[in-house]
């Protein structure tokens, strides 16, 4: 089946959360007859329950549609879905590289947001043609004219080029489809050239192994070809090649310009790295496609089974999870407080939350998560350099020459009346102010350089509450900088609880020690024995709290009619105790290990 590249359009949709990306995708599928209205489950592309709940797309997918345009030609559209969040910006960039154009969707009542801007810049950098669309124009709160101005400022388009639509009310859908034909260039590349296909996504299928999603940049890929994955250097036999309809449709071959999938007996997702180039191993191309990079975790945390006997189950769950999420890194670690568990690396905060939540939901694991932290570069007095991703492993102060921590560039967009609040929050978080620009008369775009460690604790929640929910936030890794950091330990009845150790700035250590101990005093219930909580830097105790032992815990009356009731009460208490972690003689509830996260609420 040969397809003229002239009749192919490869594009994606860029939008902020809730601005209507998924609904628009549904409408395109419906209008092109790819799916009937009856078959339509709302927001088809987001098929993971968590995605639907959060209204975000975590993993990208692609889908092919056929569209008969007003010019009489039948076009093949490949809609490549992109994960909208900063944590997945590398994946976004690879999806964009597989496209020639992007539909930029902005909510008429919300306007341009931080994520929109960062993704638009990625798209412009990738040389994509942008079709600006204002969605939800039928809302009473729509500010179409304002948003038009924002878009003109943002991408330099003409007002007349902006399409007005309501995906929900099916307004403007045809215009968008026609614009895809008219404005997005067809793919270039020759089917006769040596094969170069870009991997923009992959997923694990329990029956077929890894399914690789690819865009053929040059050449032709056929079933039974011997394929070479350039980065890993591995050669596989192509078992099935096809395009992506509502299901996989085997076609036997894929030519330059098209988007589809490849199944080649790959057993592990790590062997098909997103961004890698697929070549024909018998006649490999001279050079791979540009832009490959290793994905590096930015945020780390310990994951422990709530009950230590479930360690093996957690290990299995992580292994299964990784089949579908190559970005998740984990290795076993041991904590004296929490027993056997794993140190996990995540792309960012959202990624971390998603992994934790899905492990609990889909793999039925009850997990204790330690407070997230970043990776510190520790330069020892001996000159040795250590990368520390677990505060408990920080060397003693005497061995440290200095510590470096990652900084990010943060972009915050908010109504201008909240600039003061945002400034204060960022300064409190050791931010370095860069500049403020105005998107329009009402909204400011504020740039700060912030230590990543300062935004892994509840930064986004704080930002939202300080701006009544109006701020949007995005960040990007900047560099590593030397900081005055110290390790803060927590001791319970004299024993260091390694899972509660944290690395904090020296200026904040006393305040944190005090807040953390006071928070723990509230979270740890009274016990049969006195509990002493101390915060310490090295051997120096900087804060102390104590929990006096319980004085009475017995019910006066227990006769025939009370026994069952009392036993049930006892069973409940026992279950509660089982969920706690025993540290020395102290029983610590799981919430305590996340105490740091809610510290800023402490007065």
């Amino acid at each position: 089946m040969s397809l003229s590249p002239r009749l192919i359009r490869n594009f994606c949709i860029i939008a902020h959360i809730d601005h209507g990306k998924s609904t628009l995708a549904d409408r395109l599928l419906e209008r092109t007859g790819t799916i009937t209205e009856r078959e339509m489950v709302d927001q088809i592309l987001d098929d993971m329950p968590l995605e639907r709940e959060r209204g975000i797309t975590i993993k990208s997918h692609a889908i092919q549609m056929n569209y008969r345009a007003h010019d009489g030609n039948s076009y093949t559209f490949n809609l490549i879905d992109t994960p909208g969040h900063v944590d997945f910006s590398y994946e976004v960039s690879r999806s964009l590289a597989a496209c020639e154009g992007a539909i930029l969707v902005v909510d008429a009542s919300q306007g341009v947001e931080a994520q929109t801007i960062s993704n638009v810049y990625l798209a412009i950098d990738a040389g994509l043609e942008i079709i600006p669309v204002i969605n939800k124009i039928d809302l009473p709160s729509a500010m179409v004219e304002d948003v038009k101005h924002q878009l003109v400022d943002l991408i330099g388009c003409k007002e007349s080029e902006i399409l007005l639509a309501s995906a929900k009310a099916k307004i403007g859908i045809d215009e968008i489809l026609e614009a895809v034909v008219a404005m997005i260039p067809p793919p270039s590349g020759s089917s006769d050239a040596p094969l170069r296909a870009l991997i923009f996504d992959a997923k694990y299928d329990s029956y077929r192994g890894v399914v690789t999603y690819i865009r053929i940049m040059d050449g032709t890929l056929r079933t039974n070809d011997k394929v070479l994955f350039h980065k890993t250097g591995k050669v596989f036999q192509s078992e099935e090649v096809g395009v992506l309809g509502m299901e996989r449709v085997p076609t036997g071959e894929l030519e330059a310009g098209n988007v589809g999938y490849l199944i080649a007996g790959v057993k592990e997702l790590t062997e098909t790295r997103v961004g890698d180039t697929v070549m024909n191993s018998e006649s490999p191309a001279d050079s791979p496609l540009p832009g490959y990079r290793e994905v590096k975790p930015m945020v780390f945390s310990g994951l422990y089974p709530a009950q230590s006997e479930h360690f093996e189950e957690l290990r299995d769950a992580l292994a299964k999870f990784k089949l579908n999420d190559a970005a998740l890194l984990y290795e076993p670690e041991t904590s004296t407080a929490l027993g056997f568990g794993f140190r996990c690396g995540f792309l960012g905060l959202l990624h971390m939350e998603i992994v934790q939540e899905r492990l609990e939901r889909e793999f039925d694991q009850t997990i204790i998560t330690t407070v997230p932290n970043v990776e510190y570069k520790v330069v020892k007095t001996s000159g040795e350099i250590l990368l520390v991703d677990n505060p408990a492993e920080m060397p003693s102060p005497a061995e440290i020459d200095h510590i470096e921590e990652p900084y990010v560039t943060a972009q915050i967009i908010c109504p201008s009346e909240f600039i003061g609040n945002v400034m204060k929050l960022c300064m409190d978080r050791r931010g370095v102010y860069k500049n403020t620009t105005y998107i329009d008369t009402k909204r400011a775009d504020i740039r700060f350089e912030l230590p990543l460690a300062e935004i892994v604790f509840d930064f986004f929640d704080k930002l939202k509450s300080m701006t009544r929910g109006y701020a949007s936030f995005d960040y990007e890794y900047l560099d590593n900088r030397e900081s005055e950091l110290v390790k803060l330990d927590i001791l319970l009845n004299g024993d260091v609880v390694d899972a509660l150790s944290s690395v904090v700035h020296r200026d904040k250590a006393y305040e944190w020690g005090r807040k953390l101990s006071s928070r723990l005093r509230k979270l740890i219930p009274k016990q049969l024995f006195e509990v002493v909580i101390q915060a310490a830097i090295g051997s120096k105790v900087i804060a102390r709290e104590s929990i006096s032992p319980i004085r009475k815990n017995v019910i006066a009356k227990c006769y025939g009619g009370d026994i069952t009731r009392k036993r049930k009460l006892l069973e409940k208490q026992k279950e509660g105790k089982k969920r706690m972690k025993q540290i020395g003689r102290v029983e610590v509830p799981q919430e305590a290990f996340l105490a740091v996260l809610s510290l800023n609420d402490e007065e």
Partner: protein
Amino acid sequence: MATDRSPRKVENPDSQIGIYVHIPFCEKKCFYCDFYSIENHSQREEFIDSISREIRHFSETHNPLAADTVFFGGGTPSLLKPADLEKILAALHDAFRISSDAEFTMECNPGTIDTAYLSDYKTLGANRLSFGVQSFFEDELRFLERIHGPAEAFRAVEVAREAGFDNINIDLIYALPGQPIDRLTTNLEKAVSLETDHISAYSLIVEPGTPLAGAVAEGRIVPATESVESSMYEIVMDFMAEHGYSHYEISNYAQGGFECRHNLKYWNAEQYAGFGPSAHSYVDGTRWWNVSSLAKYIARLKTDEAPVSAREKLTPSQMLDEFVLLHLRQGKLDTDILREAFGLTIDRDMISGLETAEYCVFKDGVISLTKKGFKVSDGIAETILAKHSPAV
């Protein structure tokens, strides 16, 4: 760890069953009380018929069992006319082989004592009386909504002795909201001056669903703090010990030999059969309890239906829970029995931790609670069981 096998019988194989009869009537319901009772006595006769019927049903489904304790509780059993008591006893004697030396207790309200009634109870076989005295202060009794005054408590015990009862219990309640310590001591002194062989002293419990619980929830009544309750409990324990009463259960104290044999059956997982609305039974490892409504109780028995609200067959793990809980309430937990009956070996480190903190003394395989240990007996049971129970 406990093994999967069923626990070996922990009770004495020769032990006999205890009989409980619930009399669901009160002249006036006290606002802290969560036992089932009603102030409307119009269905009294139907109740007597129904309970006789319930007892007969039991005898039809069980082989005649030997019984050595009978306990009439309530409610207010002392409202029972001797003729009614006689009817119920006739049914019981048909259903059980009640031994001649059985302990036979009647709970009595000091406010509804009738000398003639007491003599008749005695004639009918009652040999132990339990008086709900609660306090010797007028205002405290009014607060508790009791119908009697301080003088009547003294009179009740006197009348009981005249009627020939020498095994008498009095109930006290302490840790009333705002109660000063010296009030407690006075109550204790007056109680021992009555020279009864048994005293039960309970701290006031705010039971869910009672008017008291409502008042607490609305902030109209502020219950005693944990620390006041704890200090008062210690005063009670000390006082009782000084006056020769042995502390044989959280809230129960007796002169030698006068422990309540019926209540001990509850605490030692022995068998008991309960009759009347809301009564609980425990026979052959199954516990069941009757509906807590006189109307439903009567209606069910009219149609020959069991008035049972629910039943449960105890699992080995539940038996273990109850064993530990109830034995600690009696101040002693025999770890040899735990091992032999439940296959459970208690962690020595945990015991020595409890010993170091002076919650118990461990000697000859027996954990004996100290006063400090009695105060947190439920907490100790949780600690032992959370560490040792098999995961469910």
